[in-house]
């Protein structure tokens, strides 16, 4: 049979053309719109309510009730008694042929001076501490060593301990160790005068009395001039609950810097404030006279421009009286150094919007030396404190005050790829503003070289709460606003070049009005992203 080939050839060509033409096809494309929750948050001053900064209870408007502690020193900061070792030893000047059993052959009192720099202590009460005793016996019979510390008293009894120590030898004395707690002991450090009475003018003196008795049950032994009977007492880890004496002319001085982080973000504009008083309160809970001197107070703003507080109070000594009473009746002495517009340029100082403040102070103990005729005394609850205090209504006039914040754009590569493929991204933000301040915003896209490669500046305004309505439940004026931030394709296509975003907000109040900020005011916003994508299949 003959195959009819002409038709097969035609169809072969047609099939080939069909296959080729079907391979050559455009991509399939369609647009979709996706929404993804983004950020919902409330910006408020709530976190400042409980740290002694803002008072939201006393008034319908915020009051600044600022209190910052600059100095707080206690008894342990005034002086330090180092670990001290004292020793008392005895060696006969002539040999004793035979010491019978039970014979006390040494009984002496010795005074020891404690090394305490700059302080002349007459009396201390030990809260914690101990004595490590090491006793050496060089004779060939056991012995009883009794150590007593005159003037070291607890519950009316003088500190006294007797130790039994075995027999030793001149070349190899027997050694005994013992530890005695000093907790709660009162120590009279005045010592004794020649007559054996308390030396009223004495200080830093500790006495020990040592007696040595041969063992009554032992044997008679001889003592040679080579025998050394010794007691070493190491006073250590001493913590003082009370001290009396003269503590020297110590000086506490510092130049400290403190930051107001939020003001780091100010990049332009200014504010006007009502008068803002600032007080430095010094509380002296010791019975020691002090003098205080504020040496410098200045701040530096974003420009950077530094403004110093100028006042006659800067650089002048302020005397601080000792506390009165004692123990439970101790009443601190308080001294206030008040800065206001009458004695300083305080408002100008604050309106400089300095983010870094520098404060120098000097507190001097016993500024008149040791000739006041009275003792210094420090009790367990004695403290010397310096505090910065300020209290004023939070009122502000903002004139284009612009704050800036930077957010690292460390989005995942997958997200960046998907956003780059998007046609358009819109950030839809709904805002409820309870602050009497309006705001306009700008976003800058910064590349890895720090260059601004794109900017979105046509973002809508967040209206001041004064244009809104009163919420009687929260007792706040509120204004709702909606803004849409359109991120176009030209920005999206460069998204992989973006290293960080800079958000800038320009804040304004009504012109010429210093506006009080209502208590519990907040800015609530919720946002979501609308992403328009062009989907494509090959």
């Amino acid at each position, binding site marked *: 049979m*003959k195959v*009819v080939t002409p038709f097969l050839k035609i169809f072969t060509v047609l099939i080939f053309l069909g296959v080729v033409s079907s391979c050559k*096809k455009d991509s399939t494309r369609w647009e979709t719109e996706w929404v993804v*929750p983004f950020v919902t948050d409330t910006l408020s001053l709530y976190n400042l309510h409980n740290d002694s900064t803002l008072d939201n209870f006393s008034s319908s408007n915020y009051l600044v009730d600022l209190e910052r502690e600059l100095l707080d020193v206690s008894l342990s900061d005034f002086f330090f008694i180092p670990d001290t070792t004292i020793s008392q030893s005895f060696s006969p000047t002539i040999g004793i042929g035979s010491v019978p059993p039970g014979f006390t052959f040494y009984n002496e009192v010795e005074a020891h001076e404690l090394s305490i720099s700059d302080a002349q202590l007459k009396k201390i009460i030990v809260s914690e501490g101990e004595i490590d005793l090491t006793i050496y016996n060089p004779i060939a019979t056991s012995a009883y060593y009794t150590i007593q510390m005159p003037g070291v008293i607890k519950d009316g009894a003088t500190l006294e301990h007797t130790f039994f120590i075995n027999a030793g030898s001149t070349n190899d004395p027997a050694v005994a160790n013992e530890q005695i707690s000093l907790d709660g002991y009162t120590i009279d450090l005045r010592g004794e005068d020649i007559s054996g009475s308390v030396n009223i003018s004495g200080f830093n003196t500790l006495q020990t009395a040592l007696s040595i008795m041969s063992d009554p049950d032992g044997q008679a032994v001889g003592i040679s001039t080579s025998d050394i009977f010794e007691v070493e007492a190491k006073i250590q880890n001493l913590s003082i609950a009370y001290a009396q004496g003269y503590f020297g002319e110590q000086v506490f001085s510092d130049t400290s810097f403190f930051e107001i982080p939020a003001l780091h973000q100010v990049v332009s504009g200014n504010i006007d404030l009502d008068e803002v008083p600032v007080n430095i309160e010094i509380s002296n809970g010791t019975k020691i006279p002090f003098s205080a001197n504020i040496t410098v107070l200045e701040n530096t703003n974003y420009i950077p421009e530094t403004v110093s507080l100028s006042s006659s109070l800067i650089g002048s000594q302020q005397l601080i009286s000792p506390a009165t009473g004692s123990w439970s009746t101790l009443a601190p002495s308080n001294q206030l150094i008040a800065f206001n517009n009458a004695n300083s340029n305080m408002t100008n100082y604050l309106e400089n919007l300095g983010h870094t403040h520098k404060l120098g102070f000097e507190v001097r103990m016993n500024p008149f030396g040791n000739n006041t005729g009275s003792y210094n005394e420090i009790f367990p609850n004695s403290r010397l404190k310096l505090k910065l205090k300020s209290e004023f209504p939070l009122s502000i006039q903002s004139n284009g005050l612009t704050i800036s914040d930077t957010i690292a754009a460390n989005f995942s590569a997958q997200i960046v790829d998907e956003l780059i493929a998007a046609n358009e991204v819109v950030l839809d933000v709904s805002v409820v503003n309870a602050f009497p301040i309006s705001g306009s915003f700008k976003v800058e896209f910064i590349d890895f070289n720090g260059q601004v490669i794109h900017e979105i500046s046509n973002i809508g305004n967040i209206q001041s709460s004064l244009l809104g309505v009163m919420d009687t439940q929260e007792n706040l004026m509120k204004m709702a606003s909606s803004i849409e931030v359109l991120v176009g394709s030209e920005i999206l296509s460069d998204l992989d070049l973006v290293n960080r975003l800079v958000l800038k907000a320009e804040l304004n109040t009504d012109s010429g009005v210093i506006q009080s900020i209502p208590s519990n005011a907040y800015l609530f916003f*919720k946002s*979501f992203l609308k992403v328009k994508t062009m989907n494509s299949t090959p």
Partner: protein
Amino acid sequence: MMKVACYFVVMLISLTSLSQSMLPLIQDTSINSMGHEISISGVGDYQSTSVGKDITRAFIYGGFIDEGMKSNSSSRHDEINRFGIDLNAEVEYKNHNINLFKDSLKGLVIKGGIYNFSSIIYSKDLFDMAFFGNEMFTGDTAYFTGSQFTNLSFQKIGVGWLNKKSKSSFSLNFIGVNNYLNGIFNEGYLYQSQNVDSLELLIFGEGERSKGSSYFKGFGMAFDMDYRFKMKKNENDFIHFQLLLRNLGVAYLNNTDHYLANGVSTIQSYELNDLINSESIFNNPDDFLNSISDTIITKGSLVILPAMFQFTKLIDNHSVHKFQGFFGFRGYLNNAYVPMLFGGLDYKAAKWFRMGIQGSYGGFSQLRYGMYASVHFPHFDLGLASENLFNKTGESIIIKLSCAF
């Protein structure tokens, strides 16, 4: 959410690369005197209850799917919708000279074919999500529950015998599977709050996909049966019927990735500190996907082929009537395919030319109309048909070429 949409889109894309058939068959009980016969047939058919053919064409030929196309299709959608594509090509050789089994009426049949069958049942929300995004579901829930899809492409080669007079035939086929994809959302939804401050995606579902780069991913066996019988109409005429079974069999795939998704994932609005501290989905998108608890197991799978069943009243080539009717029904082993009823009228315009019209209801679509034409020469037959000419949601083309020598 994006993942669900991607599955849907991938499914649509895969459907466009697939395939089924049928000119009304003509029954000729005379023995083929030429001894050899080769027929080549091809079917391209896609149908849908809802998706416009403008969208499907865009996937086939490329182009932009605009809002109007999407909106028109979306408005046609009911809660449950179907879409299917049947693409196939077959070559069949019949030898009438050989007497198999020493029976003078049994000839030899050798055939081969390539098939691609895809179907999807889906919710309207799934279509809208894939083509519009999730913005339209703000303050609403998009449900995907019950959506399922399948795609199988395979090839076959078979051998069998035919009855030279009745034209009934039977063949046993060896199957090679090229690709397999199957999935179902037992439960799934996406909820978005009115304020777009939270978004919750729940997916309880499973899926299978053939794995590996080899050309054949699995093998199987299937049989084809073409049983023809006649019933007496009157003294001179018979009515001829055909019962057709095609690709009834199974295949085993050694390696398939079996996916299980059982989880709920939520995206809430972040606080500023979350962004500053890089603790958001924008920094760690994998956290969101991981919370869906995807599990992948590789294992073997037994796959039932999408066998076709068709019962037809045939056209009698020797009838003296110019007009003849035909009717029947068709079904597939596929739960997206609704049994299709069809019927039509054949007109013998000349000895060498026939044409006809037909209508059908069911399948992946609903009501469809089609036409066909065929020419007949001593050694050569050519038929061209479409089962779906005027429908907005599908198209069909059938070509059959036969040579006798």
